[in-house]
């Protein structure tokens, strides 16, 4: 395959970036998108050009590192996959592909396609945990019976890998799907109910402080989420937040 790549290049966080065009030949349809980027970077290095910086780690869709906005969509045109799981067979020979970083004020660009997503870490630190004694006498989690339907919903929410595709794709750069998944995975379980009030208030407050936008229920996040996190979680978080606000 022969491709024309239009890629956002930005030297550092303070530099002014722009879209740069590169031609790439010899791309196999069986390559993953990141492998295609590797080939491009080898070509660039041979030409003495600074390679394109991009986030990646596990390359199997579970770490949430890769974060490219491809042809106007987070993680590209495929559904329920991360960028590393996207294959070049989804594109045609001769295609022009636009590659940009995940854009949001709370996700500032560090370099090229790498963005700072520590806003998510700070939200998680604000309440995305349960306080348990880990000194060796911890109670077995399975000792508490949990209804299957609740366990399944909590597990579904827990599959969120925090990649930020929801923020990137939302027209408002809202982080509600991410935060709601983290709130829901605990809110549905007895272990999480103890700190539920503080959790939802603190996490939502932190989300607001980071400067993410409001949810306008377009549903774009649910469509683009590589893990298929449901909008039902946002409704649950809204309800949890309202009840918690009433309690305080």
């Amino acid at each position: 395959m022969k491709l024309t790549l239009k890629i956002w290049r930005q030297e550092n966080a303070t530099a002014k970036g722009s879209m740069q065009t590169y031609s790439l030949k010899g791309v196999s349809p069986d390559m993953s998108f990141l492998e295609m980027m590797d080939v491009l970077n080898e070509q660039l290095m041979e030409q003495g050009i600074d390679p394109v910086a991009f986030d990646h780690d596990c390359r199997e869709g579970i770490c949430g590192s890769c974060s490219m906005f491809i042809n106007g969509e987070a993680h590209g045109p495929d559904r329920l996959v991360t960028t590393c799981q996207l294959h070049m067979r989804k594109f045609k020979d001769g295609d022009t592909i636009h590659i940009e970083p995940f854009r949001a004020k709370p996700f500032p660009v560090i370099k090229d396609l790498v963005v700072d997503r520590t806003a998510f870490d700070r939200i998680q630190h604000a309440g995305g945990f349960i306080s348990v004694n880990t000194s060796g006498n911890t109670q077995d989690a399975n000792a508490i019976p949990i209804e299957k339907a609740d366990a399944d919903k909590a597990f579904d929410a827990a599959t969120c890998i925090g990649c930020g595709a929801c923020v990137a794709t939302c027209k408002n750069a809202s982080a509600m799907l991410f935060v709601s998944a983290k709130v829901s995975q605990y809110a549905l379980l007895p272990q999480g109910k103890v700190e539920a009030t503080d959790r939802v208030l603190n996490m939502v407050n932190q989300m607001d402080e980071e400067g993410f936008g409001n949810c306008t229920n377009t549903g774009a996040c649910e469509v683009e989420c590589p893990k298929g996190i449901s909008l039902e979680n946002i409704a649950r978080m809204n309800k949890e937040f309202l009840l918690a606000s009433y309690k305080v």
Partner: protein
Amino acid sequence: MGVVLSSTILRKVAMALSGLFLMFFLLQHFAINITSVFSETVFNQFSHFMGTNALVQFVLQPILIFGVIFHFIMGFVLDIRNRRARGTRYAVYKGSSNASWVSRNMIISGGTILAFLVLHFYDFWVPEMKYKYIEVLPENPDRYYEELVHKFENLTRVVLYVISFLFLALHLSHGFSSAFQSIGFNNKYTTVIKSISKVYAIGIPLGFAFIAIFHHLTH
């Protein structure tokens, strides 16, 4: 209000509740207006009651006006924050691949409805206030039907109203079910809510358009 509605979620809930209130009002407004198609007398009776009842005039009307103003101001406030949250815009953004045009452009449909409301207030509310509270003319229980019919003699006005009702339908088609999601209602009844939403979003604006066209053609 600033302290209470400092959270993005509470602001959205406030938008949802004011929206639901306005949708309830719209239903009541339609229920009265549609009687004008069937009976001049019934329409005049309802209108006379609404126009002279102290509870409606001095309690419900101010609440309604507050609800309308609040919904619009909060809509713009939320939109400004949302635009700021993006920062640098994408070179390519395929919004249509994952969300409907209507859900992404509530500010456009809402802005059009706001422009319509200015016209609608100029047409009906301002003359009504002038009649009752400025000129203090004697109350005539039979004047309402004639005033309504007279307004829709003008084709330009009918066309503007019908276009506005189209935007109202678009706004409601997302707003109705979205309001329930915002207040935390997303469960096994959501499909029912979405069905009611479709019926309401099409039915009410279509009904209002019908009333305007009916009076234009029959008078």
